[in-house]
């Protein structure tokens, strides 16, 4: 009888150890995912001055758009805290979107190989930011599910694990885009 009880206790201990290690591993992946987003945002900040300088000559008449991009970038660089950063990065994305829309009116610019290359780099950086967020949300969701399902939830809070916050779109304007498009594009 005592042996059975001891066996059960041993099983519970092993299970708790396995759970703890799994949660630690997930938590580190979540942190890493969050840093990946920062890395990609930094890359975007570095690319923007290049882009603006390349198109400046050809887009004399769009001084406003260009200034807006540079100002939005400056604000995003100096943002403090995740929610502030999210809002300002969103504004920067919009300013860039306007710049690309306006540049459609300049055929010489669109044919320029340098500009094409920069545009590719910028598109890619936007994508990388997006995919880094997607990965962060995926892994954070996994982490949260691992904590909140029964019976893990009993131990997870005892061991001091807190659910990770998911990345959400803060700008109302950004949110509208997927609402129009039902083709499951991101």
């Amino acid at each position, binding site marked *: 009888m005592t042996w059975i009880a001891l066996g059960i206790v041993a099983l519970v201990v092993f299970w708790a150890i396995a759970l703890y290690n799994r949660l630690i591993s997930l938590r580190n992946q979540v942190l890493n995912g969050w840093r*990946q987003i920062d890395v990609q945002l930094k890359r975007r900040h570095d690319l923007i001055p290049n882009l603006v300088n390349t198109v400046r000559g050809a887009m004399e008449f769009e001084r406003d758009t260009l200034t807006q991009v540079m100002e939005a970038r400056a604000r995003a660089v100096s943002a403090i805290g995740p929610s502030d950063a999210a809002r300002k990065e969103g504004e920067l994305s919009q300013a860039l979107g306007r710049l690309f829309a306006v540049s459609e009116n300049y055929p010489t610019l669109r044919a320029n190989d340098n500009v094409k290359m920069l545009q590719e780099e910028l598109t890619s950086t936007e994508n990388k930011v997006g995919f880094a967020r997607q*990965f962060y949300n995926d892994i954070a969701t996994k982490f949260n599910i691992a904590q909140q399902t029964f019976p893990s939830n009993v131990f997870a809070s005892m061991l001091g694990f807190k659910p990770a916050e998911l990345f959400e779109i803060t700008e109302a304007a950004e949110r509208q885009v997927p609402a129009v498009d039902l083709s499951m594009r991101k």
Partner: protein
Amino acid sequence: MAGFVAFFLFLGYGFDRVYFGGGEFVFPIGTLTAFGVGSASALTSYYSGDRAVLLSAGAVSVDRALSAGASDGDTLKLRQLDNVVEEMSIAAGLPKPKVYVVPDPDPNAFATGRDPEHASIAVTRGLLDAVTRDELQGVVAHELSHVRNLDIRLMTVIAAMVGAIALLSDWTSRGLRHGSVGSGGRRGRSKDKGGAAVVLLVIWIVAILLAPLIGQMLAMMVSRRREYLADASGAELTRNPLALASALEKIEQAHAPTPSVKRGTAHLCIADPLGKAVGLRQGWAPDLLASHPPMANRITALRQMGFQA
């Protein structure tokens, strides 16, 4: 996969029963030897296979291609490929694999390498020219999913078993010709076991003669299932199954053999590089012998994910 193991165990058990005596428990020396030989050859390909494959395909790494002075349009395409691979590895949370270009006009792509830390993705020139950025992303996501799902490891294990089965079959058919079957420890026991043992023996002999073919068919079955899986998990990475569907359509339209890619890598390509007509048709024969499911079925499955079918 489980069926594969069961089939292999059945063959090996029969082999050891026939050749090494008929006790209730038989030490499976024949099975182990065959599996050992098969594993040795498979392990060699596991550790150095990626270099051999890339070399035989004439693949050039993107960095090399870029520094070798490409034209402006070319540089753009190559940078785009490199970027797309990086984007997808971010989405998958994997280290970025090495990127190669294969100078072949037929659109195709493959992944190789033994684990995510030693993976390479190669894309043909034809694919780069044919698809848009979004479609390229879908193709790269498919290949990266082969890496993430450890399909390379899985197919290596399967290759080892196919090899071992072929060996067992070979040894047996030689034995049959020299009339050694039924000599060993089985002689004298057939009397008391009677009909059932004879029937089992006949079934086993037929099975082992057909074994190489059946082994190949089972391997292809696994390969086809992994293709569907790679399509689906690729779509999970891009969240855009329709782009991969339209890339597959383009690849199908330009369907010709991809001579740069040799047979051994077929299961890691996005489309069957042998260009067999069976890959495109439906029905029982292609369902048994192709390394890839019919293109139309894959496209339909992807469209359903995008609510477009």
